[in-house]
């Protein structure tokens, strides 16, 4: 059962925030939705989940429109941090409410998870720390048994232990191949080890739909030092300079073909060393409008 977002459009004011958003999610994936702040990641999640009325396009679950068939929306779990209406509820009441909202909600599993975090069902949601609130939200998402879970900046402001716990829960949930997580985030370090696939949002569109493994086969990050002080044209033409420290240049070459390799070799670099390519590097390549400057 795949989730297909088809030509989704959203205009806010006179500004077309989303223009022809197209992508498909398959079961068993952890997908990152990546872009700078204010680019429209949350708008995508809200429009897909019908909180915003779309100005065009459709969202199809197994080929059927979730706009026309409301009951299909139960297959997508999305909790917006700005709309937590249950902040003043006790956790047992939160579970009771979600049990009514999601037909397949597993209250016993949710209770077990919440207890495993060291929380009591009689505690009030708003009295919990930010980290524990995040854990409760994840527990609700998992207990909903919705095959598609959307998380918006789930690691924001959380300490390393809570983050690790959330990552483990997400990975565990995906392991049986029936669940898919779409995680909107600018915390690229977290997503790097977590996502199988990354969608870059740019100018209201999905500008890149990358599988990190595939990218790493074609893209290379190099640390280069050339005899001359200026950056050779072979670097600026074929890659994106991330930083320049003295004569040390760090650059990413998205399409590192033998021709590019030969062009770089022709400049006789003093140092030519491959560095691990991270999601953050790809983000900079995609969203920086110009080459990095000397620091």
């Amino acid at each position, binding site marked *: 059962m795949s989730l297909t977002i088809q030509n989704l459009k959203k205009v*806010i*004011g*006179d*500004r077309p*925030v989303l223009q022809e958003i197209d992508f498909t999610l398959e079961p068993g994936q952890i997908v990152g939705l990546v872009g700078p702040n*204010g*680019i*429209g*990641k*949350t*708008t995508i999640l*809200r429009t897909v*989940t*019908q*909180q*915003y*009325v779309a100005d065009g396009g459709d969202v199809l679950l197994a080929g059927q429109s979730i706009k026309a068939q*409301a*009951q*299909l*929306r*139960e297959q*997508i779990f*999305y*909790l*917006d941090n*700005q*709309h*937590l*209406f249950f902040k003043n509820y006790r956790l047992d*009441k939160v579970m*009771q*409410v979600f049990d*009514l*909202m*999601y*037909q397949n909600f597993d209250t016993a599993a949710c209770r077990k998870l919440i207890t495993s975090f060291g929380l009591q069902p009689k505690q009030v949601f708003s009295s919990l720390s930010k980290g524990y609130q995040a854990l409760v939200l994840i527990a609700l998402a998992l207990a909903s048994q919705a095959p598609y879970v959307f998380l918006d900046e789930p690691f924001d402001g959380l300490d390393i232990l809570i983050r690790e716990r959330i990552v483990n829960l997400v990975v565990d949930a995906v392991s049986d191949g029936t669940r898919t997580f779409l995680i909107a985030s600018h915390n690229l370090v977290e997503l790097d080890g977590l996502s199988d696939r990354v969608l870059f949002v740019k100018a209201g569109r999905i500008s890149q739909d990358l599988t990190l493994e595939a990218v790493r086969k074609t893209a290379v990050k190099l640390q280069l030092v050339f005899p001359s002080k200026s950056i050779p044209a072979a670097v600026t033409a074929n890659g994106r300079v991330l930083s320049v420290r003295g004569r040390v240049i760090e650059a990413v070459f998205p399409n590192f073909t033998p021709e590019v390799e030969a062009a770089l070799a022709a400049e006789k670099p003093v140092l030519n060393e491959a560095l691990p390519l991270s999601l953050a590097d790809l983000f900079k390549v995609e969203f920086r409008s110009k080459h990095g400057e000397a620091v």
Partner: protein
Amino acid sequence: MAGKRLLNLIRIRHKALVWAMAAILLLFTVVSVSNDISNYHQLRNDTVSARSFELMKENKYYNHAYDDMSYQDYRDQQRYIYMPASQNRLIPEKNNIGLFQSVLAGIVAFLFGLILASKDNLSGFNTILFSSGFKRRGLFKTRYLYGLAAVAVTTIASVGIHVLGYYLFLPPLYVGLSALNVLGLVLMNLELVVFLYTAGIVVGTFFASLFWMILFAVIGAWMGGSALSRLNSSQIWSHLLPATPRSNDYQFLIGLTIVIVAVATAYFVSRRLFQRISTENEHNILLIPNLRWVIIGYALLTLPYSFGNWLLYSYPLSYGILSIGILGFGFWWWYRERQAKGQVKVA
């Protein structure tokens, strides 16, 4: 199945509010019945005997209202204290069992509707439910009917308490009450509370903040109330319905029909519009910004009429100036929101 789950969800969220509303309304009823009983006994105590009546007429310092009246006329005039005169009518001519809670019941019903809708609107409950498996239409319908049932049951219970109070403490009046009188009492109270409850639901559903809800509700009620009061005192009805007898029942049934049509229209239009709410407008005044033109239309309909010929006793001048002002305000509001949206930051 989904309907039952939704009803339970609404019930869990609002049962405290329903109890609070019911407690307040029933308390008003008890206070109102107590007042009726004490007023009734006061009136009976003030009723004079034949001898006292004659003495009263002879007293030159007394007012002369009874000068041409026999004691029998006087007793007939006081008859409503002992027995309602019109048992075969919905609304007795001497309406001493009228709107037992009048304005207070209406205000409570309005606030109940407003809080019911705005609590779900402002807390994010609606937003989350828009993403859930429930239809928006179902959400609006279930919440509206749940509140309506609560308000109606409470109102009927209030009428019951009223009639019981009469039965226990004012037997002469109670035996004068007919089933038709009681039905009239129920309908009269339901008419008021259901109308104002629906108005509260509409305001709470489409305004994006409590501040704007209350501000527009107060101004809107003042404008509508002023226009209605002017309309009521005008000659327009005798022009429109010159040969029609105008008994209390007739007027009441006309009013009831108007209210039923207004409530049904408000319900169906609001339910339809609810499906078009897009939550990116939650920082505006209205969740559907174009509804501003409905507000401007309402102001155009009520405000110039309420003020009449306030400017130099000239209707064209008075209506013209006010209409231009209201339209100017509408366009300023539209322009302001348009500009703000142009600079919107997207999450």
